[in-house]
């Protein structure tokens, strides 16, 4: 492990800038350990993207429930119209 290996997560998280980030890219090109760890970080990121997608789906989900809450009101309105309708 070289001193640069310790910076991989900082690099991946966008916390290294300019020359430090470029030096890390060069280092990744020759360090098998960092290449393996980078695979793990990319996998973690993919899971976080998936998790964020699941959260968005969960937020979008409750809409049908609101419609169900309106059902008794709509039914009562329909019944009132039917009873009041002149025959």
């Amino acid at each position, binding site marked *: 492990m070289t001193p640069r290996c310790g910076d991989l*997560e900082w690099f991946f998280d966008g916390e290294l800038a300019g020359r430090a980030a470029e030096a890390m890219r*060069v280092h990744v090109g020759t360090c098998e350990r960092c*290449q393996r760890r980078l695979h*793990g970080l*990319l996998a973690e990121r993919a899971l976080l993207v998936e998790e964020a997608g699941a959260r968005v789906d969960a937020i979008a989900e409750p809409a049908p429930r609101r419609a169900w809450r309106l059902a008794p009101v709509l039914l009562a309105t329909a019944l009132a119209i039917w009873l009041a309708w002149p025959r």
Partner: protein
Amino acid sequence: MIALRKREPPAVDLVAELRDAEPALLATARRLCADAAEARELVHDVIEHTLRQAEREEPGDLSAWLTAAMHACFVERCGARARRAAAAERGDAGPAPIPIERPGEEPAWSRISAADLRAAVDELDPPLRDVYVLHGFEHHSYDEIAARLGLPRLTVGIRLGRARRRLRDILIRRVGRADGE
């Protein structure tokens, strides 16, 4: 006479899924690359790599495929950088490229779901969990987390590293050995 095997075009579903995945791929590429133009090139390489793979084998877990492709394409670029840097320094061709591992079967981490990750995060000690949630789920920078939690920036980086190692241990315990450290 040798019959040329006609290449099947990629399934429409795969093309549509790749289009959907493109913004997330670009966001990841922006973390890795020096500028926006290089990030776009990397995403282009990743998509091409994935489409080529789809011609050879049945699509598996697309997320795992894309992660492997992003890794392979980025490491290839880094290798080229390292060779150029060595050549410029020593006036020779530089170190030989490291062959990139292209596993035939899906890696163990592809069996981990987003729900597994969420559950594992809940098992972290609060100081590690707070930093990880702010960074991983709420997308705050180290500086923002440092300001919010009243910690030095270095401590944020250290805690995040510890949280990741702990998460890895928890997830390995659940699904078996994962690739990548």
